[in-house]
């Protein structure tokens, strides 16, 4: 019911439904609407233009076109319905069975489907018509069945995918039977596909039945049919072009209406459960005025007041930090806090519709935000990037050697042989045990740990001074994770490269980082050297995150938690963004944006109640 009301809020759907309803009602009530019978001849008015007595004019025998259109519509709509029902019954049943059961049933159905595909549908329909002359029902049902292999294939592959979904396994664990699973979990997911396919097929069926009528294979003259109307009109095209309009326009409108309706039904059927696009962007929440200091002298990377928006909504606001040469800076926080977007913002690579809308990124004395050419030059050779999932970051169609060689040649201009030498050198540098052998492999032939090493080698190809690593160990097993952390540490000692590492894992921060930055809801909430932050966090969020780690928790004691969840960018409050989850929050926190302050040397926190937090030794 909800779907229907949602459907009727779409103008396109209303127009399409209105046309189809009008057509159905009008054809069903043809005797009431049409003043003349479809066979009544009026030889004094042949090929007449529309008039009061003949609203759509007459044909070459003076028969009323409106009447013929309406009476001819009944068999036309019936024929389309018959073809559609046959199409859906065969297509949905066999598609579901093939996809869900698999095995021999799948093989059999797919093979039969292939066979039907190979048959020329229209010829088979003509054969049927020669066996059952003039029987449009038999012809259209045959057409519906012959058109089903396409639907079978589409539904089979969708069902195969859905069968692997975890919620199907969950339903099975709950004891649901196959029939219940199909009915409750598989079919609802297929609805939109079926509707679109059904609408497209109906449109084709309308054309086909008109075509059969045009060829004189459906209703026999003088009985009215839509195809017959077109045939009649084509014979008098030079004397009365008007007749093509009543004959053709209803066909065109019906086909268009069916397609529009299919789209509209699909959209409104999934609207209820898909992630809805929120209407308009609200005004971004204000931020505290902070004096953007000049870059720290000697810093390799200075980010000042960085603001990133995605779809016009700010997701990172006023982020400032410095990375010194040879230093490792950790960016910590939960998902949705803007860690990764900050890292990508430095490189000008914000995903999707995002863009950097404010602030400066200064790398080795050059302002990257001011000059896109500088930014392009720095990527790879000045700043390199290692992503979370190495398997996705490597191109599956090229060998390790060719991917690395391309990067080496891009940055050094070396010839192929020199580049190859450098590739092997790089692979050895990242601890790949058999560089020659690994160089010849494709990404799918590498283990996760090896792929991450190759990715690090790729990042090092341009001899960068800064490596940005976004959760580089999250996708890896714990022992491989340790190897990669050790590798990063070793590389840093040997080459003096600075590292900006994005992570949610305090263990990684403790192992690798010198300083760390905690982000919450798009802002930096705390910044300190790692030792001090672990021993004496100065922001309640940092304290809460540290305490929530099960690493040192004793069995049987409740873990310390932070209540609630991270607010989404559209829900950010005016005041402190952590206030809703914070045990120290007061009215002062919620009143106005909180600024970053430095309560101790080399430490920054965005909290008004630091002293309480410190004196109580973290209540969280």
């Amino acid at each position, binding site marked *: 019911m909800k779907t229907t009301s949602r459907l009727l809020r779409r103008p396109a759907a209303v127009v399409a439904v209105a046309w189809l309803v009008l057509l159905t009602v009008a054809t069903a009530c043809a005797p009431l609407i049409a003043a003349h019978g479809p066979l009544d001849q009026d030889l004094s008015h042949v090929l007449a233009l529309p008039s009061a007595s003949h609203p759509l004019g007459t044909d070459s025998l003076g028969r009323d076109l409106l009447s013929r259109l309406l009476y001819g519509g009944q068999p036309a709509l019936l024929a389309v319905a018959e073809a559609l029902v046959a199409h859906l019954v065969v297509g949905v049943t066999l598609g579901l069975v093939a996809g869900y059961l698999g095995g021999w049933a799948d093989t059999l159905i797919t093979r039969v489907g292939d066979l039907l595909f190979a048959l020329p549908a229209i010829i088979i329909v003509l054969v049927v018509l020669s066996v059952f002359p003039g029987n449009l029902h038999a012809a259209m049902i045959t057409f519906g069945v012959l058109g089903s292999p396409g639907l079978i294939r589409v539904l089979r592959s969708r069902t195969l995918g859905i069968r692997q979904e*975890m919620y199907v396994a969950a339903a099975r664990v709950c004891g649901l039977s196959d029939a219940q699973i199909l009915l409750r979990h598989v079919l609802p997911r297929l609805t939109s596909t079926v509707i679109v396919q059904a609408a497209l097929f109906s449109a084709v069926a309308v054309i086909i039945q008109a075509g059969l009528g045009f060829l004189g294979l459906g209703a026999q003259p003088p009985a009215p049919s839509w195809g017959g109307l077109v045939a009649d009109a084509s014979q008098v095209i030079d004397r009365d072009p008007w007749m093509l309009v009543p004959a053709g326009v209803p066909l065109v409108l019906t086909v268009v209406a069916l397609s529009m309706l299919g789209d509209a039904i699909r959209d409104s059927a999934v609207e209820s459960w898909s992630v809805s696009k929120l209407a308009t962007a609200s005004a971004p929440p204000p931020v505290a005025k902070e004096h953007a200091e000049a870059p720290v002298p000697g810093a390799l990377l200075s980010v000042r007041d960085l603001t990133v928006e995605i779809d016009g909504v700010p997701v990172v606001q006023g982020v400032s930090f410095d990375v010194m040469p040879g230093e490792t800076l950790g960016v910590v926080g939960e998902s949705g806090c803007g860690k990764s977007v900050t890292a990508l913002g430095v490189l000008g690579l914000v995903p999707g519709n995002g863009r950097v809308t404010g602030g400066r990124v200064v790398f080795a004395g050059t302002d990257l935000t001011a000059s896109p050419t500088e930014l392009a030059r720095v990527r790879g050779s000045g700043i390199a990037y290692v992503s979370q999932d190495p398997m996705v970051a490597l191109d599956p169609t090229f060998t390790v050697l060719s991917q690395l060689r391309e990067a080496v040649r891009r940055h050094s201009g070396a010839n192929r042989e020199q580049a190859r030498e450098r590739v092997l050198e790089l692979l050895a540098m990242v601890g790949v045990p058999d560089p020659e052998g690994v160089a010849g492999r494709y990404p799918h032939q590498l283990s996760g740990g090896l792929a991450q090493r190759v990715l690090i080698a790729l990042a090092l190809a341009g001899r960068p001074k800064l490596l940005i690593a976004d959760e580089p160990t999250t996708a890896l097993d*714990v022992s491989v994770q340790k190897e990669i952390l050790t590798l990063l540490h070793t590389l840093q000692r040997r080459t003096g490269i600075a590292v900006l590492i994005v992570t949610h894992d305090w263990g990684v921060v*403790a192992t690798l980082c010198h300083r760390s930055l905690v982000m919450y809801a798009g802002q930096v909430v705390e910044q300190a050297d790692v030792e001090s932050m672990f021993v004496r966090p100065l922001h309640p969020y940092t304290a809460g995150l540290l305490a929530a780690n099960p690493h040192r928790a004793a069995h049987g004691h409740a873990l310390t938690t932070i209540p609630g969840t991270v607010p989404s960018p559209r829900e950010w409050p005016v005041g402190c963004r952590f206030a809703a989850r914070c045990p120290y929050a007061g009215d002062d926190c919620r009143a106005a944006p909180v600024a970053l302050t430095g309560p101790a040397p080399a430490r920054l926190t965005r909290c008004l109640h630091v002293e309480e937090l410190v004196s109580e030794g973290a209540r969280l």
Partner: protein
Amino acid sequence: MTPRPLLQVTELTVEYGQRHAPTLRAADGVSFDVRPGETVGLVGESGSGKSTVARAVLGLTPVTSGRIRFDGADITHANRKTRRALSARLQMVFQDPYSSLNPARTIGQTLAEPLLVHSGERGKPVGERVAAMLERVGLPAKAAERYPSQFSGGQRQRVAIARALMTSAELVVCDEPVSALDLSIQAQTLNLLSDLQRELSLSYLFIAHDLPVVRYLSHRVVVLYRGRVMETGPVDLVYERPAHPYTRALLAAVPDPDPRIRTGRHDEPATPRGASQPTATGCPFAPRCAHVVEICRRERPGLLPVDGVPGGASAACHRAAELTPTGNGTVARAVAVGRPGNAHMEET
């Protein structure tokens, strides 16, 4: 006297036939049991067979050999009817809260499903039970009318836990239930699982790759490697005095969230684990083991009690007795695994 185990897995072997490769043995002679009210942690790296064991227990994957008993009844090859009846008592919480809930069905419809199978109840009483369960897992009762896309990962995992508890479950298999969640949400979810266990005297078979999480929730732990049990025992004993070199390697690899320790900061030659395959008859961990001797490659070690004390830990290692420290865990930690140099020192 120990109570009768609720779940008893004996010599479970699961093989997957592969089209262009030899048969993959995902679980190889795995035995363990879960007692009423107890949590048994199943740990190991990817490919260790943790999830395969879970799927076999729930009948989602066929068993090649071995036996699975639930409350005394053999359910190894249970048919659909038996499984249906069993599903009221044996439930599961899946890893990914995004794909384990059907996006096209409301939370209420999802939660009512187990009742549909078991009590045949419909209408108002079902709605009341759904609302009560939602509130029990910390969600508002009106969440029943909404769709999964309107909830965060942590909230969805609460829904998944609620679904497992709609019928009177006794054993809940949790397959990495918190690994997709953020730290603060993970802590909330772990607390919820532990509260529910106390209230409803549930048993958990808790599968995770995150060792601290397993330690927090489990009473006993089973360490798997390449489908075989390497070590098993009470959780504190195994974590404090790991007897198997693989357990030690796993524990040593966990980055310690204490900057004063800096576990990964030794400037080790960072070579990855060897690609060489274990021999068919030997210890599966032999190619990676720092303490490997000749017998390890020749003969597969059995799972034997480490101290010879009942209720203690058991390990599948020829050298468990000589390598396991007798005192506290410090000796074990100092014996670095994965450093080829050390193997020599051990031998001489």
